[in-house]
């Protein structure tokens, strides 16, 4: 049976108490904050619970917030059975971002976590195979971080590009 986001949030609160943050936003994108170490447990519950039944992690993404000294990992949960949605967010420390993996809960989180690791440098604790997935293996840095500086050249290929502005 489909639940609205308030009911989903209440169900999570019922199980985990104040570990689950306040409900923010409305509609499909309503979200709640979860501590980095607890996300695996919360995800396991959301997946296994008979009422919630989140059988699909439709997206896992990351955002860099330098002002807040945080890298946020965003989990979009979806239930094919009940057709309801919920969003969980995790704030990791920017200088040493470590988040528990959910790849044991949803196997397709494996590559999505590798992508977040590749582009933002978040280390997923317990991930079976945390390697770069998009960028070359020897690429310096994590390009979606706001303070990423592009290398001058990559294996002899110059990365300087002409300006598109006409002066």
């Amino acid at each position, binding site marked *: 049976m489909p639940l609205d986001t308030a009911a989903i949030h209440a169900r999570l609160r019922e199980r985990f108490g104040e570990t689950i943050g306040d409900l923010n936003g409305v509609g499909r994108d309503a979200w709640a904050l979860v501590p980095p170490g607890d996300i695996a447990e919360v995800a396991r519950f959301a997946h296994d619970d008979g009422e919630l039944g989140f059988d699909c992690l439709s997206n896992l993404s990351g955002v860099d917030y330098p002002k807040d000294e945080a890298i946020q990992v965003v989990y979009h949960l979806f239930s094919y059975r009940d057709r309801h949605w919920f969003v969980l967010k995790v704030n990791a420390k920017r200088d040493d971002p470590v988040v528990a993996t959910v790849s044991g809960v949803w196997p397709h989180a494996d590559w999505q976590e590798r992508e977040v690791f590749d582009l933002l440098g978040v280390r997923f604790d317990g991930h079976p195979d945390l390697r770069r997935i*998009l*960028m*070359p293996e020897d690429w310096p840095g994590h390009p979606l971080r706001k303070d990423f500086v592009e290398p001058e050249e990559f*294996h002899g290929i110059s*990365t300087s590009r002409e300006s598109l502005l006409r002066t």
Partner: protein
Amino acid sequence: MSLINSAPEMAITTRVDDLLNWTRKSSIWYMMFGLACCAIEMMQTGGPRADLERFGMAPRATPRVSDVIIVSGTLTLKMALRTKILYDQMPEPRYAISMGSCANCGGLFQLAYSVCDGVDKVIPVDVYVPGCPPRPEALTEGLVKLQEKIQKERWLVRKAEPVGVRA
């Protein structure tokens, strides 16, 4: 005059270079090297409507037997290194066609951190085919231009070194 009975009596005179070039240009084997959406158009060009095989061109799956590499699509820096390796594996004489805006100059994605803006930064290019993506007719035109280039080459004629001229 019918050729049926008179052909065995006929003699054709031509230059050896022209004959060699005629045979070479009539059997250009191109390497299947699809990188992005341009590859779809390249497949169409090899399909029955544009039908590259009427020029003696056939797709090859390995660089070892290919004459021309058609770089079709956005070249990322990761792929640029592989492109160089594949080009080096092709036997000479070898040619390269840069197909589409992305391979020509980076196109829409040229300012992205992961994109090499132009395949000519990595390998020498013989024919640039503009378009985003180029239609099969455009790629056919590019390959016909390459045929013209091959036909003009001289293998058995060497220009004498200029005497008494110092750079």
